[in-house]
Every structure is written in structure tokens, then in C-alpha cells.
């Protein structure tokens, strides 16, 4: 088993870069999982802002406006000094300060109220814009009732009643990935890390055996060519299994309960099949890699290319129809599709679509292996 041993010795020499990918992956998964969990708010709720109101109005409208704003926001004390007030605004201790002048009610009744209110705000603040909208809403509603013949008290009462009505907000479209378990996020990014680790690991270990002089030297030996190739194949499979086991062990440590559910089992199977596919892609890449630099480029091309196109990094729901159609020609699409279907199934009998995706991933594995074999044949012939 000299070839097998040499394969792993060479692989061991590349352990640093390979382990780096494991840790990067772990970091990204944990980060993505925690960030996306926070983003899982799918309900709408109004926001309450901090407002300071200085009401000097002697009439009732100023008081009612203050009452209306208090019902929707937090009223905070307004500093007396101008500088303190500006500091409070600057440090965002309050979002808006409203000054209602003495004769505001009279001016309102006379229809000359516009421009009489004074607001202090941070220029361009969206919070201030919201508050000004609320104020305008209230005053325009009161003005409308007044114009219809109501007295000011009646107009204010009805306006307050009207503005208490709340709209029901419902999302027409939801991102399907929202509200999914941690397991989903862990397995979502597997294609990228598997592709990169397989191409770099298998590539680095297989490359010396494929170099012209070493290949010729090995052919001179009494160990048959078939035996040597079998040992390399065994090395590749073993490496794939080790990578798979490391990731599954990580999954078990991070989400023990999830891994022993139907979803966990199917995700593990999906990852295993993709591992085989990544191995085939690596075998295919090695045929064209002349040195470590080309291998690096290939790992990025296949790793990032397949991941972006296949919906690993960008949700398939957010892709355009054309891009989604093109994505069907990369194996990661079928992996991601399986991953999404897995979250919906409750028993093995519902796994038809999952199995279909599994089969597609296997077909891709076969296709890349065959293409690699063909490229290898052509290379040997050209020698």
C-alpha cells in the first residue's frame, strides 16, 4: 500500500490549508445561523419613538395633539436650555422635539396653522419624518372634520377615534428559508466547503502521481498500474469519508437533537452524496491542473461558481427565473433543492422530490467522473 500511504503523506503536508477551510466554514455557519435567526421576524409592528413636546398652547388642540402623540410614542422631558436640547437630539436621546406655540388653537381655527409648529430634529432623520407625518395626519383629519362643520372638540374626538384604527399588515411573499432550524444553515453551505476541500486535497495528493516523470517511474515498478490506481482511488474515497465524518461529527456536536431526526438523517445523506460528487469534480479538475496555483484557481471557480449559481450563498427564491433555470446545470442546485425539500417532509414516504434531487447529484458525479476519465485518456494519448 505504498501509493496509498504516499497519498496520505502528501495530503498531510497540506493539512494547514485544508483545516483552515474547516474553521472558516464553522465560523461562517455559526455566524449565518445566528444572524439569520435574528432576522426571522416575519410580523409587522409599529415603532414607538422618543418625542419631547413643549406645549405652550392655551387652547385644547395643542393638548390633544400631545395626547395623540403620547398614545403612539414615548414622551420624554425636554431640556430647558437650547444647547442641552441640541445635545439630546445629537446623542439620539430623543428623536424629535415639538414646540406648540401659544396661539396654536386660534390659528388652527382660522385656518392659518401651517408653519406654526416648530420641530427640532436631526436633518434627514427618518424618525423625524415619521413623527411629522403623524402630526400632519392628525391635524389634517381634525381640519377635515372642522371643514365638515364640526366644532373643534368634536373634530378632535372623531379624529382620535379614526386614527386609532390600525391596518393589518400581511406579507405577500416570504423568504422560504426563514424560520428554519439551525441544521438547515449548517448543511446549506456544505457544497462550497466540500468542493474546495476535495479539489485542494485530492488535487494536491494526486498531482505528483500524474506528473510525467513520476508517472513513468511508477510504471517501471513491479507494482501493477491497476494496483497503483486502485490505491489512489482508495485514498480519495478515504479522504472524502474523513472530511464527511469530520463535518457530521461537528453537526452532531452543534445540533445533536436535529441530527437524530428524519431531517438530520436526510441532510446527512444529501451531504454524503454531494461529497461523492465533489470528489468527481476534484478528479475532473486534477486533469487540467498544472500546478498548485491552477488548482487554487479551480477550487475557487468550482467552489464559488457552483455555490453562487446553485443557490448555496444566494437563496434560490431570490434568483431570477433565467438564473434558476441555468442553476439546474450545476450539482449544488440539486443539493440545495434537496435541502429545501428535506425541511418540508415528515416521513420517508414524502421524500420523492428529495430522492429525485439525490439522483441528480449522483448523475452529476458520474458525468464529472466520466469527463475526467476522458480528459485523462486524451492526456495519456498525447504523451
Amino acid at each position, binding site marked *: 500500500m*505504498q*501509493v496509498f*500511504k*504516499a497519498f496520505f*503523506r*502528501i495530503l498531510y*503536508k497540506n493539512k494547514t490549508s485544508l483545516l483552515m477551510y474547516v474553521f472558516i466554514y464553522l465560523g461562517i455557519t455559526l455566524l449565518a445561523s445566528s444572524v439569520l435567526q435574528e432576522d426571522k421576524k416575519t410580523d409587522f409592528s409599529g415603532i414607538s419613538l422618543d418625542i419631547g413636546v413643549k406645549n405652550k398652547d392655551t387652547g385644547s388642540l395643542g393638548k390633544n395633539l400631545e395626547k395623540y402623540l403620547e398614545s403612539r410614542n414615548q414622551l420624554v422631558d425636554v431640556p430647558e436650555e437650547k444647547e442641552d436640547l441640541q445635545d439630546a437630539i445629537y446623542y439620539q436621546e430623543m428623536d424629535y422635539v415639538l414646540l406648540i406655540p401659544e396661539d396654536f388653537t386660534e390659528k388652527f381655527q382660522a385656518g392659518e396653522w401651517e408653519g406654526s409648529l416648530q420641530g427640532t430634529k436631526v436633518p434627514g432623520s427618518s424618525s423625524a419624518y415619521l413623527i411629522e407625518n403623524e402630526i400632519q395626519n392628525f391635524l389634517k383629519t381634525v381640519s377635515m372634520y372642522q371643514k365638515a362643520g364640526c366644532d373643534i372638540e368634536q373634530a378632535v374626538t372623531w379624529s382620535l377615534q379614526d386614527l386609532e384604527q390600525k391596518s393589518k399588515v400581511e406579507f405577500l411573499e416570504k423568504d422560504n428559508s426563514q424560520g428554519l432550524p439551525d441544521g438547515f444553515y449548517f448543511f446549506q453551505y456544505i457544497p462550497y466547503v466540500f468542493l474546495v476541500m476535495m479539489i485542494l486535497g485530492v488535487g494536491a495528493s494526486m498531482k*505528483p502521481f500524474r*506528473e510525467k*516523470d*513520476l508517472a*513513468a*517511474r*511508477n*510504471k*517501471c*515498478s*513491479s*507494482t*501493477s*498500474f491497476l494496483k497503483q490506481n486502485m490505491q489512489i482511488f482508495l485514498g480519495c474515497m478515504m479522504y472524502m469519508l474523513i472530511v464527511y465524518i469530520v463535518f457530521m461529527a461537528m453537526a452532531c456536536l452543534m445540533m445533536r437533537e436535529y441530527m437524530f431526526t428524519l431531517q438530520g438523517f436526510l441532510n446527512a445523506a444529501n451531504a454524503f452524496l454531494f461529497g461523492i460528487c465533489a470528489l468527481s469534480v476534484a478528479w475532473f479538475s486534477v486533469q487540467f491542473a498544472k500546478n498548485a496555483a491552477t488548482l487554487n484557481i479551480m477550487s475557487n471557480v468550482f467552489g464559488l461558481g457552483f455555490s453562487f449559481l446553485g443557490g448555496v450563498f444566494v437563496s434560490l427564491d431570490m434568483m431570477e427565473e433565467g438564473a434558476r433555470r441555468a442553476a439546474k446545470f450545476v450539482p449544488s442546485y440539486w443539493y440545495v433543492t434537496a435541502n429545501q425539500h428535506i425541511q418540508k417532509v415528515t416521513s420517508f414516504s414524502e421524500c420523492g422530490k428529495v430522492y429525485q434531487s439525490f439522483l441528480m447529484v449522483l448523475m452529476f458525479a458520474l458525468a464529472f467522473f466520466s469527463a475526467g476519465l476522458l480528459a485523462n485518456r486524451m492526456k495519456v494519448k498525447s504523451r
Partner: protein
Amino acid sequence: MGKKVVEIENLVKRYKELIALDHLNLTVEEGEIFGLLGPNGSGKTTAINCILALLHFDKGSVKVFGEEIQPDSYEIKKQIGVVLQNVAVFEELTVQENIDYFCGLYIQDKRTRKKYVEEAIVFSGLEDFRNFYPKKLSGGLLRRLNIACGIAHKPKLIIMDEPTVAVDPQSRNRILEGIQKLNQQGATIIYTSHYMEEVEQICSQIAILDKGRCVASGTKEELKSMIKMGEKIHLEVWNLQPFQIAEIKELRHVYQVNYQEGMLEIWCSGGKHNLVHILDYFNSREIGFGRVYSELPTLNDVFLEITGKELRDSV
């Protein structure tokens, strides 16, 4: 006559229009250091690759240890050690790991292999470099590692294709001594080179290749006896007159004279006391002369006379 280790008969190998081997015939007997001498492109490496079944040939036969060699002749390959022209070692493995790897392709038993690997390290003088990676080795040490990888499993036939290319003189001497030592231990060696001095120094049998054909073969003495030249005499002489040059040309055994910039070169065919005859002529004519030295024919002279071109120039 010794046992035949390698027999090549009418071997023809074509690369499209180019004929790399043109009905080549060679026989290597047990215990020989067989030198394949020839300029680059003369077919040495192609012949080696055919012996190792690395190449398919168009015509003829190659027998190793009495059997036709095929790509799957693993029992025969077990007895062959190979040192290819380009250093073929793993950059990612240390000196010891490399030797162990190649030895392990032939020797399965762990204990025997360990012993052989150690012996190969000592033989190649790589004791102090066993944990070095090839990148850290000098050109000479790298060549020695290449040889150690090829001979570690103690083969009966060792094929070395230009093992001293780009090697410093110290390492070259060590390699040549090593080859002689391996031969003394019982290995038959096929050694290719375009350095005639090396071939002359170590080979008991020599075949000269040119354009894929064996133009001459035999011991170095036999090869030298094939050509007209027996001796080349150099004399430092000033103001030699044309009639004197003509007189020298008429001396016994002299067949060619060249006088240029005060240096007279005289080619003599095989014969005794050539130098004495020439010096007698100079003394009798009272012609003064400076440095005098005589050269015996080299393999380059053999190659020159047979092919009409210099071996060195063709390299």
C-alpha cells in the same frame, strides 16, 4: 560468454515522420557496465524506454532476462532498477520517505525494506539529509537521491539514463564510483550518457548510437582499434615552412597534419614510436620546438571518424 540480460533485435520506433530507432541491435550480458553513448537525439532514451516497456515500438523485439518485456511483465520489472534522466521524486516526501516509497513498490516485507532503505541511504551518502525535502537538496544530492530510489530494492539490472547531467564534479565522481561498486556487487548496468569520459571510465562494453542506429559497439579498446587514428601528437613550433609540413606528412604512420598559430597537430595511425620518429625529424632539421604532448584516441575520435561529426558538437 555471459548470460544475456538484455537482447534488442531490429528495434524500430517511429514518432510520426521521425525514426527514433532504426533497426537497433544490442546485447547486454550479465555483469557488464554497458554504455550507450551518443549525442542528444541519437535514440538512447528511446531505447531505454523500450527496454522498460514505457514505449510501444513499431518493429523488432526486446528481451529482458530472456523474456519479451511487456508493460505488465511485473516479475521481470522486479529485477530492474531505474534511474531516469529527469529526477523523479516526490517534492512532498523527505529523502527517507522517497526511498522507502520506491523501494516499497518492489519489496513488500517491512523489515527487509527498512534494511534496504538504510543501505541505500548509506550507499548514496545521504545519511545527513534523510529528513530533508528534495527542494532543500543541491543538484548533486538530488541526483544521488534519484539513484538511491532506483537501486534501493537491490535489482539485478540497473538502467541509468544520464544520471550525471548537471552535477558538480565531486558528486559526479561519487556517482561513478557508486555505479562501479554496484557492478562489483553483481548488478548489470546499462548506462547512457553523452559524456564520453564517463563512459570510457566505467563501461566495460560500449555501443555508440547515432540517428537511432548502433554505429559501433565493443570494448573501448575494440572501438578505438576500429579507427585509423592511433595517436595524435601536438608540438609547439614557430615558423614552420610549407615544405617542412609536407616532409612531416611523408613520415611513417603520419596521415594528417595541421599547422595553425604555432601549434602543429600530427595524426598517426596505429604504430610504435611515432613520437620518437617525429622528434628525430625535428632534431635532424634543427627545428626548435616547445611543448610536446601526445594523445591517444578518445571515443569522440571514434565517433568523429565513424559519423563525420564531433560527439561534443552534436550535444
